[in-house]
């Protein structure tokens, strides 16, 4: 198995169709297939074991991804927002590598460093230059070949490199995409970065479905809206914070005025109920899908589909309406279980850690082997529960749990209550060491402009709605909370800062 097989089929089935566009530049499936093979020839002639990419999305992304697969080398997209020192540390771990990046980084690269850097446009031009007429390179169909390495942010210590083999990537696509299902007029707006699993999955899914990708390398709500209208985008994937910005931008207008946008899917972070409700009101004709997945599971393992969204939004029944905050039901190709700390499988309604098993699930990290249990189950470290009909609800990270006096407390539950207070704009809750309780509940709160509230008032507010054990022992106030670029709240950063003061 190799993702090149997917591209070969696309080139065969709709080779003349535009596959990717970025500003004025574009490439058909046939051209991408040829470019991937030409770049693979270059790769094989160089002494490199990895193909790394550092920079915003461009045509170099699909070429790089498929060329690596064709040459049998892992593709390693890196987070360009990291500090130079952090990037250097990652590059040290993937040598020798061919690094596709921007001009400034190429020029600042020390010679003989085990990393050969090539400027992005040069790489694209080299790949597209057409081949020398020699026979098509055959690519390995060994399904164990490593397709992609993605560094996941570590909780402590260095980031772990998640290993996704060709078998994981291909089985994910087979399970979730029907070949050639997109119409020629379809277009998917992809604004997520290449170093996120959603960015990689978007390339593979769009190629196999035959849906043209319109790349937006640097997201802003204004640019997204303009591009979506201009390119008559039919599909888009967003993380919740991007959707929030777009909704804020559009809410002043009479309508979203995007009649072509048939489908909007989102994931990568928690979607607040109020936001999805506002988005559904602004885009009443659009199908919404919530996709839950992890880097280690080759992206999506559960989906809350368009009908689920509409049924929940239209329902007066609070149980059904609550489904709007669910991540839906597992894909038919995977199994999901909720387990307690001892590993026992829990019943519907009970909260525990989410475990998943399936062909697309890797759970392997470079240098650490597999984190799958003996029966192939992967512990996601996400906390959650299943309802009676198999809908999955996320409840934060399992390791964000605060253990206070032997009781497990969920930060999310307390945050939701704080956020419901009219003076509170944002809130984060976490555990801090405490002599009496083991851990105590601490909260950091952002007040809305023009509002005022005291610690005591907020403690009383929480105490009125939740058990007393959940009342934050201390509340500090701040200007804003730290989020990463994908919209994930960085509780660990807050915890660290709190303990340093």
């Amino acid at each position, binding site marked *: 198995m190799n993702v090149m097989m997917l591209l070969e089929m696309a080139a065969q089935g709709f080779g003349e169709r535009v596959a990717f566009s970025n500003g004025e530049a574009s490439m058909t499936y046939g051209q991408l297939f040829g470019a991937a093979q030409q770049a693979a020839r270059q790769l094989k002639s160089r002494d490199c074991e990895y193909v790394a990419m550092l920079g915003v999305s461009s045509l170099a992304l699909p070429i790089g991804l498929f060329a690596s697969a064709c040459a049998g080398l892992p593709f390693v997209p890196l987070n360009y927002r990291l500090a130079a020192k952090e990037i250097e540390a990652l590059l040290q771990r993937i040598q020798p590598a061919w690094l596709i990046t921007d001009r400034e980084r190429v020029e600042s690269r020390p010679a003989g460093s085990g990393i050969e850097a090539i400027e992005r446009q040069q790489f694209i031009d080299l790949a597209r230059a057409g081949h020398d007429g020699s026979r098509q390179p055959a690519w390995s169909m060994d399904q164990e070949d490593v397709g992609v390495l993605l560094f996941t942010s570590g909780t402590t210590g260095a980031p772990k490199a998640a290993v996704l083999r060709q078998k994981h990537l291909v089985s994910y696509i087979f399970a*979730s995409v029907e*070949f*050639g299902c997109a119409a020629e007029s379809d277009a998917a707006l992809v604004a997520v970065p290449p170093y996120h699993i959603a960015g990689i*999955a978007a390339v593979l899914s769009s190629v196999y479905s035959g849906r043209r990708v319109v790349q937006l390398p640097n997201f802003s709500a204004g640019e997204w809206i303009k591009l979506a209208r201009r390119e008559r985008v039919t599909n888009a*994937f967003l993380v919740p914070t991007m959707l929030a910005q777009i909704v804020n931008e559009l809410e002043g207008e009479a309508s979203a005025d995007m009649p072509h946008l048939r489908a909007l899917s989102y*994931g990568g972070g928690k979607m607040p109920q109020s936001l999805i409700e506002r988005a559904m009101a602004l885009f009443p004709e659009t199908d919404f899908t919530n996709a839950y997945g992890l880097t280690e599971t080759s992206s999506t393992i559960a989906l809350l589909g368009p009908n689920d969204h509409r049924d929940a939004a239209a329902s007066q029944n609070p149980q059904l309406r609550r489904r709007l905050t669910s991540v839906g039901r597992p894909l038919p190709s995977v199994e999901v279980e909720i387990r307690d700390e001892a590993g026992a499988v829990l019943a519907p309604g009970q909260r525990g850690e989410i475990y998943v098993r399936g062909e697309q699930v890797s759970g392997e990290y470079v240098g650490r082997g597999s984190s799958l249990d003996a029966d192939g189950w992967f512990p996601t470290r996400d906390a959650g529960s299943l309802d009676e009909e198999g809908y999955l609800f996320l409840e934060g990270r399992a390791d964000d749990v605060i253990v206070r006096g032997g009781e497990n407390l969920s930060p999310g539950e307390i945050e939701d209550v704080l956020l419901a207070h009219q003076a509170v704009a944002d809130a984060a809750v976490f555990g801090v060491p405490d002599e009496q309780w083991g851990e105590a509940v601490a909260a950091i709160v952002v007040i809305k402009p023009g509002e005022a509230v005291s610690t005591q008032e907020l403690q009383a507010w929480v105490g009125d709605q939740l058990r007393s054990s959940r009342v934050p022992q201390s509340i500090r106030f701040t200007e804003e909370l730290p989020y990463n670029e994908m919209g994930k709240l960085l509780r660990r950063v807050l915890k660290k800062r709190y303990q340093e003061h």
Partner: protein
Amino acid sequence: MSQYKPGARLRSAVCTTEVVVIAVPDTVTPVSCGGAMMMGEGEQLSDGVTLAPLFADGTELGKRYSDDSGQLELLCVKPGEGSLSVDGVALTLKGAKPLPSSD
């Protein structure tokens, strides 16, 4: 039948059809296309073999075909006029279960 492991490519001897093996049962019976046994990689196409009218329903790009047990599964990577069969029994199209696009 070493060419029948997952990932192996089979070519039709009588048309342009090519398939990739997705799944294969423990005991394998040769797959035919257009009535003629399919060739593994590196095997030479023999002359004088023609497309059997009984197995000329075509094989479609991107579709998956399986036998009754479901243990044998082939993905068509190049379309052609011949249709797939095992032991004279035509393989059937594996139904697609379309999910909403999520990426």
